[in-house]
């Protein structure tokens, strides 16, 4: 039995460079589905970096890319979609 494996794979994926993140909150408020949140941990610069959770408050990530464009530190390095 494998743990952490969902029955259906996630539709999309966001990769974050936590060392570049300054925790400004912009991607958190811009995400239409609330799939991003500030983590309780710290990065090396002392900020709370943003973290990705696939199923947010209002639905799952659709790889719309708004977080990628809005990030001032280009810490959202990659937005990827499940291969059809």
């Amino acid at each position, binding site marked *: 039995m494998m743990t952490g494996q969902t029955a259906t794979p996630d539709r999309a*994926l966001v990769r974050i460079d936590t060392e570049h993140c300054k925790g400004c909150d912009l991607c958190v408020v811009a995400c239409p589905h609330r799939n991003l949140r500030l983590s309780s941990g710290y990065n090396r610069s002392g900020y709370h970096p943003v973290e990705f959770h696939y199923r947010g408050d209002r639905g799952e990530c659709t790889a719309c890319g708004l977080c990628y464009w*809005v990030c001032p530190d280009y810490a959202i390095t990659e937005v990827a979609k499940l291969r059809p």
Partner: protein
Amino acid sequence: MIENEGTLYETKLGPLPTLTSKPTHYCAGCEHGTLTHLIASALQDLGVRERAVLVNSVGCSVLAPDYLNVDAVEAPHGRAPAVMAGIKRARPDLLVFSIQGDGDAASIGLLELMYAANRGDPMTIFLVNNATYGMTGGQMAPTTPIGMVTTTTPRGRDLALTGPPIDASKLVASFERPAYVRRVFLPVTPTPSTEFFNARGALEGALAVRHAFEVQERGGFAFVEFVSTCSVNWKMSVLDSKRYAARVLAPLFPEGVLRDRFLLESA
């Protein structure tokens, strides 16, 4: 292509080779970083990185060459348009662009900006208007709105004493030669009655940056002003500065295409 728990994902938006890996010195939530990303994306999509020359300014944008993988010339205190005109005349095959602040382009370098606009030399100017002098500690800039508290106007900017704020886009558009003049409201905007913010500004900005480069390739003068925020010097939280910008700066500097000689926006 990413592999996650045995599943393959196709990259839709990925890291840009036009950006360096250095973390930016900009404060959290600053639109300078967003604009750097938009420029890097446009340079990558148009395939012009090898020919691009960044002529940069004084202010927070002074370290922009550290983050963009392009050749750069330093022309502080607003002299970027004059240097760009020189580069373009010597080497017309190069693509020149500048990232300037409002203290740089609309105050100390206003003369260079006006004469470059009057001549209509092919060049691309990005003006980041955050209504204050960011790097030197939040003094009053020519674009500061009336009533805004800065370190040099502790009781708010006084209309009788300093006059109204300067509208740089309108000024450039008043000349005959510029081919593309546009103002974009870059910060995220609060949407009414929800806790969400609208990210339309960044997407509009991406289009404006690309058009500004295309205009220069066709031999035109392109000027794009980005209305931005400066949460640290406005002494607000990041999200409060976005709300203030939407409430005060958006009506004062309305976004729109002021000039579009090559009809790129309607295409």
